[in-house]
C-alpha cells in the first residue's frame, strides 16, 4: 500500500513529467491552429470608413446549409452552386470600393499576406492586368493532396477584394460560375482573340 502511494506521488506529483505530457498533447493542437485554411481577417474598419461601398460576407456551417436550402434546385445555375456548397465549409469575403485611387495601402494587407506564408498555404498564381491596373493573387491551402482552402487577394486602384473559402474547392467549377448570374465575363479573353486576329491581318 505504501509502495503504491509512493508510485502515485512519483507519477502524479512530478511537475516536469506533467509539463512534458501537456506539451506533447498541445503541440498538435497548436500546430493545427496555425495550419488552418480559415484566415483571420484583420481589423479593416479604417478602410471601411474610407470606402464608398463595402461588402462583408461571413458564411459558415449553419448559414451555408441554410443558404443551400434556399437555392433553387431546378435552376441549372443555382444547382451548380448548390453542388459546390456541399464541399465548402466556410466563405469569407471582404470588398472595399473607393471613390478615388489609393484608398488603401499595401500595408493594410500585410496581416493577411503574412498568414498566407504559413505552412499549408502556397501561392498558386498571381497576375497583373495593366489595362485595369489589377493585381490578383490566388493562394491554395492543401490538405494533403487535396485542396482544403482558397484565398484570393485582388487589388485595383479603387477596389480591394479579399476572399477566403474553406473546404474542398473545385476551381474549374467555381470559375465557370461567372456569367451565370448575369455578370459579364472579363473581356481579356475576347481582347486576346481580337489582338491575334489583328496580328494575322498585319502578317497577311
Amino acid at each position, binding site marked *: 500500500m505504501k509502495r503504491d502511494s509512493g508510485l502515485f506521488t512519483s507519477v502524479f506529483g512530478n511537475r516536469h513529467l506533467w509539463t512534458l505530457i501537456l506539451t506533447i498533447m498541445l503541440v498538435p493542437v497548436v500546430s493545427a491552429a496555425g495550419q488552418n485554411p480559415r484566415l483571420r481577417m484583420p481589423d479593416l474598419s479604417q478602410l471601411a470608413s474610407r470606402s464608398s461601398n463595402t*461588402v462583408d460576407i461571413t*458564411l459558415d456551417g449553419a*448559414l451555408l446549409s441554410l*443558404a443551400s436550402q434556399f437555392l433553387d434546385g431546378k435552376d441549372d445555375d443555382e444547382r451548380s452552386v448548390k453542388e459546390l456548397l456541399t464541399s465548402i465549409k466556410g466563405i469569407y469575403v471582404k*470588398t472595399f470600393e473607393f471613390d478615388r485611387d489609393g484608398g488603401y495601402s499595401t500595408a493594410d494587407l500585410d496581416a493577411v499576406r503574412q498568414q498566407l506564408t504559413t505552412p499549408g498555404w502556397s501561392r498558386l498564381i498571381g*497576375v497583373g492586368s495593366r489595362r485595369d491596373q489589377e493585381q*490578383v493573387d490566388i493562394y491554395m491551402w492543401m490538405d494533403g493532396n487535396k485542396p482544403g482552402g482558397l484565398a*484570393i487577394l485582388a487589388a485595383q486602384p479603387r477596389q480591394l477584394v479579399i476572399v477566403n473559402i474553406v473546404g474542398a474547392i473545385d*476551381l474549374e467549377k467555381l470559375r465557370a460560375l461567372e456569367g451565370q448570374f448575369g455578370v459579364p*465575363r472579363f473581356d481579356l479573353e475576347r481582347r486576346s482573340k481580337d489582338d491575334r486576329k489583328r496580328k494575322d491581318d498585319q502578317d497577311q
Partner: protein
Amino acid sequence: MSFEDDERFEQELRRAFGAEDPGEVFTQRVVNRVTVDAVRSVPPRPPARAPWWVALPFAASLVVAVGGVAWVQYARHVEEGERARTQVLTALRLTSEKLNVVRSAVIQAQELR
C-alpha cells in the same frame, strides 16, 4: 283539601299523563316530516359545468398566439435563408470573376507568345 278532592285530583293527573293515540292524521304528518328531512339531508349536487362554447374564445386565442409565433419564426427563417442565399451567390460570383481574370490573363499570355 278533603280526601275526596285528593282522589279526584290524582285521577285527573293519571288521565292527563296516560297514553293516548294521537290519531292517523298526526302519524301521517310525522312520517311526511321525516321523509322531507331525509330528502333535505342529501348532499348538494355539484354546480353544473359551464357549456363547452365558453372555452371557445380561449382556445381560439391560444391557436392564434401559437400560430402567430410560428409564423414569425418561419418568416425570420425565410428572411435569413434568402439573405444567406444572396450572400453565397455574391461571394461565389465575385470569386469566379477573379478566377476568370487570372485565367484570361494566362490565356492571353500564352497566345501572345
